[in-house]
């Protein structure tokens, strides 16, 4: 078996062992979704009126989709690397005949697998219980959204690696990483669609890679973009993926060099 597949499976088993932290994580995800779901449900209670151009079903689908994308995209174990670096334990990863990024991606994917499965079940149950009006997209839109989500996964993975590399230069970066993570969640639309924000702020955020994590793919699915906008968005998203990948490679090369120089 491929060694990365093996890493994936081993990590999967390990996660199934950690039931307590799984429950905690699900409750956290569920309460957030419930609070956002009912907030929007209340704001869009009049079915004739939309909100910011979102119809009732579009907004409810955004919230439920956000639950899925949080599990699928905004999940990373890269921050464990920060800890490993700070503890001087990176060497044992570097010494193995494995590509560090591929190894880390296998770990991430196993995390995502468990979370997506859980989140999908929750979303289905919520949608059923509260009879959520779901937006059903044209298969082509769904496909395009799928392409975009794939890119989002890679994009977040590389962003995570860039952030985790901070461990090479400071042992006290965990707090900042948490803050940056929160900021990214807000800027990606993982709490609410960016259209809600004041125009200047929303425009400024669009210049960053973060909206491509959640906001963009969801809006592709909700068919709120023109074909030209989708094409332009996908190109920019690909550009960001490549950019962040290069940045991650570059910064890790420097980091590892300085790590080895210190004999860590």
């Amino acid at each position, binding site marked *: 078996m491929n060694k990365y597949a093996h890493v994936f499976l081993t990590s999967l088993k390990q996660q199934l062992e950690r039931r*307590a*932290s799984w*429950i*905690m994580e699900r*409750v*956290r995800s569920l*309460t*957030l979704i*419930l*609070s956002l779901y*009912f*907030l929007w*449900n*209340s*704001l869009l209670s009049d079915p004739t009126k939309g*909100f*910011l151009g979102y119809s009732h079903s579009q907004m409810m689908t955004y919230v439920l989709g956000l639950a899925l994308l949080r599990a699928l995209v905004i999940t990373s174990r890269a921050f464990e690397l920060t800890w490993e670096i700070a503890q001087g334990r990176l060497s044992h990863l570097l010494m193995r005949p494995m590509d560090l990024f591929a190894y880390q991606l296998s770990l991430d994917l196993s995390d995502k697998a468990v979370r997506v499965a859980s989140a999908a079940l929750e979303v289905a149950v919520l949608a059923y219980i*509260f009879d959520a009006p779901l937006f059903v997209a044209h298969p082509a839109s769904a496909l395009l959204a799928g392409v975009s989500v794939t890119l989002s996964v890679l994009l977040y993975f590389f962003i995570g690696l860039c952030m985790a590399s901070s461990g090479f230069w*400071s042992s*006290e*970066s*965990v*707090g*900042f*990483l*948490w*803050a940056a*993570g*929160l*900021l990214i969640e*807000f800027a990606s639309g993982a*709490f*609410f669609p960016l259209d*809600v*924000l*004041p125009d200047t*702020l929303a425009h400024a955020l669009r210049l960053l890679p973060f909206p491509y994590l959640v906001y963009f793919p969801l809006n592709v699915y909700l068919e709120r973009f023109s074909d030209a906008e989708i094409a332009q968005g996908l190109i920019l998203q690909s550009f960001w993926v490549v950019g962040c990948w290069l940045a991650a490679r570059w910064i890790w090369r420097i980091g590892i060099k300085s790590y080895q120089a210190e004999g860590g």
Partner: protein
Amino acid sequence: MRTLRRYARIWWRLAAMSFSETWNTRINSLGWLLGKLVRLIFFFIFIVAIFKHTDSIHGYTLPEASLFFLTFNVVDLLAQLLFRGIYGLRRIVTEGELDFYLVQPVNVLFRVACQTVDFLDCVVAVPVLALTAWAIAQLPAGTVTPGNLTLYILLIANGTLIAFAMHVLVAALAVYSQQMENAIWLYRDLMVLGRFPVDIYAKGMQMVLTFLVPIAVMTSFPTKALIGLLSARWIAYALLLSTVSIGVSLWLWLKALAHYSSVSS
């Protein structure tokens, strides 16, 4: 009175020690603080921004909706400031620190709850309180009476007491089972439901949040009382709830300690 003064001094000592711990890792702490502020500010911007496109959230105006959100923060901050130690229960139980607390002449629950005092939350309290004052000032003239305001503060205190009871309950569970020391984080995750007025939720959920996991009583009741939407009956219920829940949780805590003393090896 002497006991009170003594406990105040011990609390002060613990607070000072927590502070120097925070200060030791000040760069890291600054990061955590920043995160807390980011969360507060973005949610506040979100609420204000919503009102650019609508007049009300479930019939509540901007200052009212802000007050629900801010009051949730006030109760949460008070709990963090006063009972933060419960979040360290894992270390306290598994590393045997509890044994030291038990052989020292200080109330064990007090020691557990106040072992750490979260100073970052003190900093966050500044914008929260400022914004709360701003939101109260924005309410239409005549809404806020001295009576309402007193009731508001009273119900916040009452909410903090219920929060205390929930913390003690979880602590009792953890000490009893010597597992689930992290269960207190569930409380924090559930509390998130109190960010918005409880009225937005489905009826069944409202019942749960009022009677079963009384987050509504802790976070929504004070604001409702302030804007004159809470009947005397509900106020009585809130006071009764805190009394009963504190009684029950303290009783369970003593049970748990007794159990600990018969099983720990």
